[in-house]
């Protein structure tokens, strides 16, 4: 690489409004495929799942025309610069988000079922259960390829109070990734913590010494846990198993760090605390996803932009009322307009993210060409809480496996999980069953 990497100061200036600056590109290639077209080292396919809560104002979302020449209703309008990279998928259903005898709780179920296709168990704490989520299926299979199997991000802390939705524990409405049916994965909200997790902040020698020490600590605790089993109840044993599987996970991670090529630490300034301005926070998290993909630290990312049922306000677009309250709009036009503005805020952020990915050259194309970015909500209309006709986008080229730039309409009740199965397919992960998926989705390529 011949270019001088840009300085921290320059990178900092790039933050804020003009996030589309090519600073990521300016950092130079950091992977085998980054340098140019290389048939021996083709760029791998990455997946990213983005979740926005409380449904959409569907009238301002769904294009009227199908196929290539589709129109961009108000909410999709910000995607204009990247429309050729986006598939609008209409008609998908998250059936397991429906009550099926469990009564209220559409918000908790919407997120709980979104990537799992499994009916979340209605409980306020005891025996939490949903299903393994699609990202974790991919993460488990790709684990040996990258330093981190996956990354779980959030734009809002897990809810801090009581049951969040009609008798469902808050876990459901704040968690998108499920490592197993019983193990929800918490999301990372602080950009600083994410950055430190992605990239070494220590010199290699120091890091190696630290890893060696950690290895012997982990050996010790595993040995030390052995005698516990006989004196624990069944529930305790499950917790201990969880602990031991985390121990193994970190051991593997340390082992991988020894064999995988070193990761270059980008010159990116992260603030010590979570930015108070939500748009800055979201922009930063998107930057970190781009960096994680670009440096190949992971190939699987989930990002919950706000918890399901979130009552965030959006003063930056003039909405000072709480999002969830507003989403019960009773079909009042002024409330629906505000919901549209919130929805539009999110697609604007998405468009910037996609443009950023498109600005990073990789091999024979761009990072966006080598990624599949799914975006959507498990609720369709926030007022009706219906889980069919979901607002779903799929962006990126998927390493040539997708033909974006179209609006595709699916028959009613087509399971959302069929999309997830189709995406796994495109990562060369042959998985036949996931949640309520019934097969692959046609019309994506």
């Amino acid at each position, binding site marked *: 690489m011949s270019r001088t990497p840009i300085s921290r100061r320059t990178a900092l200036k790039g933050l804020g409004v003009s996030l589309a600056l090519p600073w990521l590109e300016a950092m130079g290639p950091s992977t085998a495929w980054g340098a140019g077209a290389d048939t021996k080292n083709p760029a791998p396919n990455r997946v990213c799942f983005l979740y926005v809560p409380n449904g959409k104002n569907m009238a301002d979302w769904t294009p009227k025309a199908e196929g290539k020449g589709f129109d961009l209703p108000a909410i999709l309008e910000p995607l204009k610069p990247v429309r050729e990279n986006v598939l609008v998928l209409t008609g998908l259903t998250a059936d397991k988000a429906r009550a099926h005898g469990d009564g209220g709780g559409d918000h908790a179920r919407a997120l709980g079922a979104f990537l799992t296709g499994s009916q979340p168990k209605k409980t306020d704490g005891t025996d939490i259960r949903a299903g393994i989520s699609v990202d974790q299926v991919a993460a488990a299979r790709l684990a040996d390829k990258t330093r981190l199997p996956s990354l779980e991000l959030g734009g809002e802390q897990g809810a801090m109070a009581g049951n969040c939705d009609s008798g469902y524990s808050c876990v459901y409405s704040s968690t998108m990734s499920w490592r197993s049916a019983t193990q929800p994965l918490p999301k990372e909200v602080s950009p600083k913590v994410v950055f430190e997790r992605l990239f070494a902040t220590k010199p290699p020698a120091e890091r190696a010494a630290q890893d060696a020490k950690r290895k012997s600590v982990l050996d010790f605790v595993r040995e030390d846990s052995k005698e516990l089993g006989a004196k624990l109840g069944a529930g305790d044993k499950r917790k201990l198993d969880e*602990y031991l599987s985390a121990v193994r996970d970190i051991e593997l991670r340390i082992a991988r760090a020894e064999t995988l090529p070193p990761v270059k630490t980008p010159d990116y300034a992260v603030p010590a605390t979570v930015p108070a301005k939500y748009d800055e926070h979201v922009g930063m998290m998107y930057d970190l996803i781009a960096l994680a993909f670009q440096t190949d630290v992971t190939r699987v990312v989930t990002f919950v932009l706000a918890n399901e049922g979130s009552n965030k306000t959006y003063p930056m677009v003039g909405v000072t009322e709480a999002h969830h309250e507003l989403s019960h709009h009773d*079909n009042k036009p002024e409330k629906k307009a505000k919901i549209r503005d919130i929805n539009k805020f999110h697609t604007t952020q998405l468009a910037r993210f996609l443009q950023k990915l498109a600005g990073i050259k990789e091999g024979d194309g761009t990072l966006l060409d080598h990624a599949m970015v799914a975006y959507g909500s498990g609720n369709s209309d926030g007022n009706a809480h219906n889980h069919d006709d979901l607002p779903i986008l799929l962006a990126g080229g998927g390493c040539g496996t997708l033909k974006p730039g179209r609006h595709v309409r699916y028959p009613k009740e087509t399971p959302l999980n069929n999309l997830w199965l189709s995406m796994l397919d495109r990562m060369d992960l042959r998985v036949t069953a996931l949640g309520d998926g019934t097969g692959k989705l046609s019309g994506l390529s």
Partner: protein
Amino acid sequence: MRLRRVFIFAPLAIAGLVPLVRPSVPELTAAQKAEPAFKTDGVAFLKKHCLSCHSGAKAKADLALDKYADEAALLKDRKVWQRVIDTIKGGEMPPQGRPQPTAGESDAFLKVVGDVFEKHDRNAKPDPGRVTMRRLNRNEYNNTVRDLVGVDFNPAEDFPSDDVGHGFDNIGDVLTLPPVLLERYLAAAETIMNRAVTPTPPPVTARWQGAWFTEPAGPKVPTRNNWRIVSVGKDDPTSTGPVHTPVKVPDNGNGDFVLRARVYAETNGKKPVKIALLACCDKNAPGVASDEDVKQLSGAAVAALRPFKIVSIEEVTGRTEKDAKEIRTKFGPTPGLHRTAVALVKPADGEPEPKLYVQFMSLDGPLDSRPNTHKQLLKCDESKPVAERSREVLERFASRAYRRPVTKAELDRLLKLADAQLKAGDKAGAAATGKWEAAMQFAMTAVLVSPKFLFRVELDDRPDSAESHPIDEYQLASRLSYFLWASMPDQELFDLAAKKQLTANLDAQVKRMLRDPRANALVDNFVMQWLQLQPLKNAQPDPKKFPQFNEQLRAAMITETKLLFGEIVREDRKVLDVLNADFTYVNATLARHYGLMSGPNAPRFKNNEEFVRVDLKGTNRGGVLTQASVLTVTSNPGRTSPVKRGRYVLEQLLGTPPPPPPPNVPELEKDGKPVNAGTLRQQMEAHRANPACANCHAKMDGLGFGLENFDALGGFRTQDGNAPIDSSGELPGNIKFSGATELKGVLLGKKELFARCLTEKLMTYALGRGLEFYDRRAVDAVTAGLAKSDYKFSALVTEIVKSDPFRMRRGKSQ
């Protein structure tokens, strides 16, 4: 509304008035049988009154009652049936417009169903339940590290937030341990031990200050060649001193220090010139100078420097700059050390006045630069061989970390780890000094990552036995300390547990622990979660409607509630104060918000931060329902929400939560047109015209309307826009009231419900699990005990820690 109530309550009233005509057919049948059977009578009632809606796949409210054919089926779904009982009892079902059962029919049915459960509970063995072992949550982790290691910082800030179950963040079943968290635990353990133990002590800090820059400062400081001149007298502090300079020292001045100064003095006298080296400190520090001591010192600034300790009095022998000498004195721990000074001692009578020249002052130390935590954690008999020292240090640390005596096997393993680290140090050619310390530090890091530290493991010899058996005394100590302090047990609890004397001393220990400042954890964690005040930290009231909202007000709201509870805990007040305390705590911000700043009794504040206790008698406030914190979290950003407030009362204070709204609530329509006009109250009343919503909203809205005099920030108001506030409310049972004070009266009339609700919440928090039906007995006993002790807070805690679920457990094989 009104129509409906007449409809429901009329049959009841008639039945009550004319008991003789009451026996109806179903009840006769029930009475005639030895045991009224659900199979026959109960099912008959269901068929007659319920199944037309509640059966099959499309059952209303997703409640199919046709699957309950016998007692066994009933017992399996107790929660469902509790709701069925409540709904029928409350006259909510069958709904208006459907044929209603007679009071006799309903009563008989409820008795049949109730008997099924009671018979079951009576014959069931007492069951203390079993708690899943709990991972320390973020608070507990921070507090435990503070008490175990002795450092007060918050390593857990970077941990992912803990999930909440049953309303609290300390529920064993819900607290998971994903890999990312274990990674944080590793990093935190390293950071903690790096700060607590310093194998290679850092160099001693010298705080050197040229006399030119010492105080008192000013343009007229007399100097010569950068030496500062101090003369005798008491008029001008700039020229008479003492000269002094601020210092910052770690550990509150603990440790040995050296104070240095380079000086000489000019004099014509015969007697030696003397100076005093001073260390300004806390007034309670040992050796603080008395009035008598101070009298001998010269200088106008002396009085202002007190309290100080006279480190030493020294003779100044040098008479010229060339002969100047450095004076140095060592002194011991000086709590609050924050400033050092050099003063002239008054010359003896008749002696001429000398002139003192000072070049610099320097405070060096602490001479042992290892932090206190280092010394405490590694304390041992240093005359002993290394192996024995290691054993002493690690046995003490691991036993406290695991909150029980460490076993020999555990200790051996730990020593092996430390030993390997020592040998690795040898190989790497590490310096001899600090090698052992580094090995201890490493072993302690491993302890902090062990599941025995991260989880509250309660080892059980009979983990599969269904028999109820007591937990051991160390486990009881931990349950107590994490309940009341959200931290590990202290030495007193450990000592009692070691002597097996804790169970016998529970009352005294509870009293002691509640008076300890650590009991604030109960307020910070339990109360904040019970009252659901965490969301207040992120609340974003509409700035257009509430420009007065700012961070100061937000913080003051939270502090008020905490201080109220702090007093209830500390002063052992009645728990009913939660509903109607006649006092509160406000700072200036909150007092303005509440309109308490005028009048003869207006509180006075020293500064903006200070909170003072104010008497609320005769005001419109008192108790949490009139506190801005609760009123704000139960509002929407731009307006009040009587529904939310009503639901809050039912759920958090009375423990009778309304069922969740039916899915897909129809839009608010009347005569085919959406209801968009009218006051909030009118809109809500229209809402209640919908029978699907009416049952619950009758309860919620009524309670919420009673609080309408408080706006969405908890400010008092009599107008909403142009409309006057109507704060009258009505509850099922023809209970009418107006305004917050009368509403509180209604709630106090239900104090048993409130006490039971609080008991259930506090027990959930104490046990770390959701309450089950088998806990009913324990809840009954605690609630009864609380009422008997005049609702004192300590009684509630004592009853809980003595209850079976708290002291016992049973095994659970799956």
